[in-house]
């Protein structure tokens, strides 16, 4: 093949920024600001969990039908297959959701939809501009009441690259929020005692505030000397400075309030040295950290991208192999319809379900004033592929929130006319974030409440 003229540019990537999109969440903000959740109300929480590449879905009459992720039956009359059996104990605290997906996602590349799992945005191949994620809408509204507005985690950490992101969370500008990935760092950030010398700590906070002021002041003349593109980059930096300023203010407010005490058994159960070389322990440790953050009311919003669709650029690509499976994550998912494939992938799906069950059990084990921690948390677990490459019919589980008005114990099937954003609207409203609409929502998912 001859080199085409202009060939070079075929591969270029637009630095497209500055495109303003509709911002439906603004309404949510306004209402939430008008009527913030009273402090004496019980804490309500939102958690988003994600895995890449979808699940095994052999037909119901298939020899491996017992490895079909979705249950048999419907409504209250449903039976878990082998895959989700580990969740049997929590059956009355969760709902399996079938048929939902993001309509925008259906128009996107087969492996491009991890970015939009919690946003519902449309990322086309060139202008990769996302929109705010549902957890950050909640964080904006609920964040003032806790030491941290949200906990954003992933196995790979950082933001990854567009369409192969390694974070679930996006801010109000649609910018990805870097995910934390090192258990020790997360622990230190959320639970470490801090400097016992509060005077020194206060001094540093005050000086930091002054530093940031000066940085902002000094940047005006610099900004004037820059061209448009560079200005956009500098503005990103300045936005970060302003955010830390708020963070510093917030920390000053929290300085006198002691860091949460962890129980001995909670400390002992933690494996802060775990990393991506030992998936079982690592995933559980990340779950433990969310549990602790919620239990101590250090934050009310958390996301964790367990695996993603970056394949070999992801540390999670080899998770199955490290757990004794023969193939990498992508190969397992890709070969689900080969002979024996749905059983192999089904076993992995079950492994993931076991870890999810572990997390739900932890949340369930902590009693609060009304109900358990799980009853006061909304936990969404799922993927943005049904089977790999298919951006319809996401495998989804919504767990928890019985004290927030959720009715569980069912397998609910929805038509593809119902955008998944409707679920987010309901989740937000249940979490005390009054929200008439999110992304492309057309209403609420009232079936969850009755």
């Amino acid at each position, binding site marked *: 093949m001859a*080199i*085409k*003229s*202009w*060939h*070079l*540019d*075929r*591969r*270029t*990537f*637009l*630095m497209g920024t500055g495109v303003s999109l509709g911002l439906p969440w603004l309404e949510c903000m306004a209402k939430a600001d008008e009527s913030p959740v009273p402090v004496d109300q019980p804490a309500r929480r939102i958690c988003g969990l994600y895995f890449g590449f979808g699940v095994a879905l052999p037909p119901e009459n298939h020899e491996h039908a017992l490895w079909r992720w979705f249950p048999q039956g419907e409504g209250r009359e449903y039976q878990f297959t082998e895959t989700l059996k580990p969740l049997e104990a929590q059956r009355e605290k969760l709902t399996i959701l079938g048929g939902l997906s993001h309509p925008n996602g*259906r*128009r*996107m*590349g087969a*492996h491009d939809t991890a970015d939009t799992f919690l946003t519902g945005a449309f990322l*086309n*191949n060139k202008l990769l501009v996302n929109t705010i994620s549902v957890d950050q809408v909640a964080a904006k509204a609920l964040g003032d009441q806790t030491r941290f507005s949200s906990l954003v985690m992933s196995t*790979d*950490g950082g*933001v990854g*690259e567009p*369409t*192969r992101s390694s974070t679930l969370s996006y801010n109000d500008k649609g*910018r*990805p*929020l*870097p995910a*934390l990935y*090192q258990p020790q*760092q997360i622990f230190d950030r959320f639970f470490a005692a801090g400097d016992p010398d509060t005077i020194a700590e206060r001094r540093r906070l005050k000086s*930091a505030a002054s*530093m940031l002021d*000066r*940085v902002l002041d000094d940047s005006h003349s610099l900004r004037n*000397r*820059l*061209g448009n593109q*560079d200005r956009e*980059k500098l503005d*990103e*930096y300045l936005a*970060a400075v302003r955010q*830390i300023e708020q*963070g510093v203010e917030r920390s000053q407010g929290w300085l006198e309030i002691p860091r949460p005490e962890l129980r001995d058994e909670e400390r002992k159960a933690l494996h802060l040295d775990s990393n991506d070389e030992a998936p079982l322990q690592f995933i559980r440790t990340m779950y433990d950290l969310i549990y602790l953050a919620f239990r101590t009311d250090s934050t009310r919003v958390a996301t964790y991208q367990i695996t993603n669709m970056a394949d*070999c*650029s992801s540390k999670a*690509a*080899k998770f199955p*192999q490290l757990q004794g499976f*023969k*193939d990498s994550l992508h190969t397992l998912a890709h070969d689900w*319809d*080969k*002979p024996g494939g749905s059983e192999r992938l089904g076993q992995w799906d079950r492994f993931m379900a076991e870890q999810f069950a572990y997390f739900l059990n932890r949340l369930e084990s902590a009693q609060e004033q009304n109900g358990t921690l799980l009853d006061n948390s909304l936990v969404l677990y799922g993927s943005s592929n049904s*089977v790999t*490459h*298919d951006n319809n019919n996401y495998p989804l589980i919504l767990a928890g929130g019985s004290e927030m008005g959720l009715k569980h114990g069912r397998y609910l099937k929805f038509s593809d006319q119902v955008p998944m954003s409707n679920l987010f609207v309901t989740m937000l409203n249940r979490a005390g974030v009054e929200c008439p609409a999110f992304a492309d929502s057309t209403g609420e998912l009232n079936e969850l409440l009755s």
Partner: protein
Amino acid sequence: MPAQHFIFILVVCCGLGSRGSSAGEIQFERDILPILQTHCIRCHGPEVQEANVRLDILSTNLIEDRAVTESWHEVLNVLQAGEMPPKDEPQLSGNELSTVTDWVSNSIKAALAARQKTDGRVVLRRLNRVEYQHTMQDLLGLEMDYARDLPPDAMSADGFRNNGSSLQMSSLQLEYYLATARRAMDRVIVQGEQAPAIDHTFTATSIDNWLGDAERSNLLGRRQEFLVKMVDNYPNDGDFLVRVQLTADLKPATGYPLLEVSVGYQVDTEILMCEFDLVEVTSPESQTFEFRGRLENFPLPVRGQGKFPGLVVRVRNVYDDKSPLPTPQKDAGGKTTYPGEAHLPILMIQSVEFHGNTYVQWPPDSHRRILFDAPGVDREDTAYVAQVLQRFMTRAFRRNVTEAEVARLVAFYQEIRPEFPSFEETIRETLALVLIQPDFLFLLEPAGDEKRSLDEFELASRLSYFFWSTLPDERLIELATAETLRANMAGEVERMLADRRAQRFVQQFTDQWLRLNVVDNVAVNRDRFPGFDDRLKQDMCAETHTVFEELLRENLSATQLLAADFTMLNEPMAKHYGIKGVFGRSFRRVPLSPELHRGGLLSHASILLSNSSGADSHPVRRAVWIRDRLLNDPPAPPPPNVPSLEEANPEFHRLSVREQLEIHRTVESCNQCHRSLDPWGIALENFDAVGKWRTDIPQSAGDGANVQSVNATVVLPDGREVAGADDLREYLAGDRKQQFARSLVSRLLTYALGRSLELTDQSAVDNVLEQFAEDDYRLKGLIHKVVLSEPFQTK
């Protein structure tokens, strides 16, 4: 599979309205739109948008909208390549085709001309993790893991981690920049007297009860270790030194003993941390090796707690020829011993010393570099503080700083001085402020909307970050100050490439260009490859690094990356490839004979393994890698909602991958892309997952007892038949040389600039490519040309 997500056209919904004429006499509405309506809109219109392309509302305002330009450019590409309309659809007449392509190319030309002065600009970019690590270390002269808490950097769509647009700044990032700066300053600027030295000398191992089943001994073979512990009397921080005195018993026809020193002990993991690089002991004589470190960087035990209190130093000989391990025996006292292994080299430990708080002088160098000696001057004097700041800022900002800039920092110092208990603490805080300024964290090249030449300081930084991933050294700054750097470019490039730090360029560039890091994310299947040692992955990457380095150093032709009669190997890699007579850890040039089937990147285990499944080869992944990384012609990503293959053939899984892919291609939607993809990978089927040569393939399913012989003969998309890997390499080095060279030029320029290339860079690439070809594709020559190119020299 590497991410591909920039192939097809966006649907531009904004910026509509200007659909009038913008190119000469051809009018869009009158002349172009009807042709599109006839031939394109059915699949790329309101009803259907194949590949996300919609043409009926694609804006024609190319001048103001770069995205639109790119989209029309794609249209031009597919029309000129004959890819569209599909073959079974009515084709454009010659006249129609030229009308559309003329209009599109003229419009693009007009848009480019309008943008020539503003596009193709290096974007303000922050230091990435690697650059930040080296920059902080060189600036402060203190060894520390500066990047520890920073989020991993985003990779750009074209695979680079130094891309200004992709490198984000977030509050989390900035927060940790501040925390890191404070952590570092606490160590660099010291207070008070030097802590007393702590010295220990051990001539015998001092721990009996320990983890694992190794034997304690001064004679170190594969199963022995020399282990000592300081229970209480050890420092918690500061510089330390471990000195090992030993002799060695070398053996013929085998490698050298490998000295490994580990310090510290992490209670949670119950393992020692190996923090020092291995040292190969190549002489039998008594000699001393020194290992220096900073205790804060090592895992320390909690004092008085745990089952194994105390600071541990472990010395081992980790040379392993992979022969079966000896069986442990119990001696009379119940201790584990091992029979000697006469064929293996032995280390004989004479003594191990530990020295804590080892400072040549106090305050240490790193402190004096900032708070320089000024006899008779009051340190709290504003003039001294200003001087300290001026010197520090000049180095940190990599340019001359103005008095006003210094004055602002002095003002900060004065503001917080009353709050802080000591001068040192105030200075630490003030320096931390320097280290979160955009002037430090970003490669700042202030410029308005018009392109301009770089000044000499900016040029110095471009060069030092290109070759060394760090700030300019003193000489570069001197030249820049004297404004003679540009005049001495060629000499400086030679000097910088000859410097050890240039290995950072070799490593960073090859890792990112060739995606070598992926080996870490591929788990090698232990059933298929029992005994595979994960540490070999590092050596695999080192082969690729050192080959590139060798071509660079010797200024050889870059086409030797495609086919070569030598490679760079050390003992483990030579063993892996079945090549005898290479001993030792260092990589050296090894000539290759044809029957070895090696030479060129496509025979490197690093690349073969990273594009495998860990159990077997992965022809599609290998194919994508060749098309994307080597030829810069990546295939389109899988389309949305790919139907799963209903494999009607029950024998499907018994077929070879080659045959499976053949069936795959009978599905038209798959075939569109895979016909031009699969052959590239199939041609490499003689290499298994870990890059060893094979003539038979174990079956992918079933009992595994059956094997099929490899058939690696393929017909490439251009009709050329290629008989396996050797033939493919020759073909690439011959017929595809020019395409590869263009790809390499583009990748290198992309890395050098820290941004993706754009349409406007076309002429610069052409220019460099032309000179590159005239110079017989010599690699070092290419570097010189890139550095002299217009994009590198301008902002």
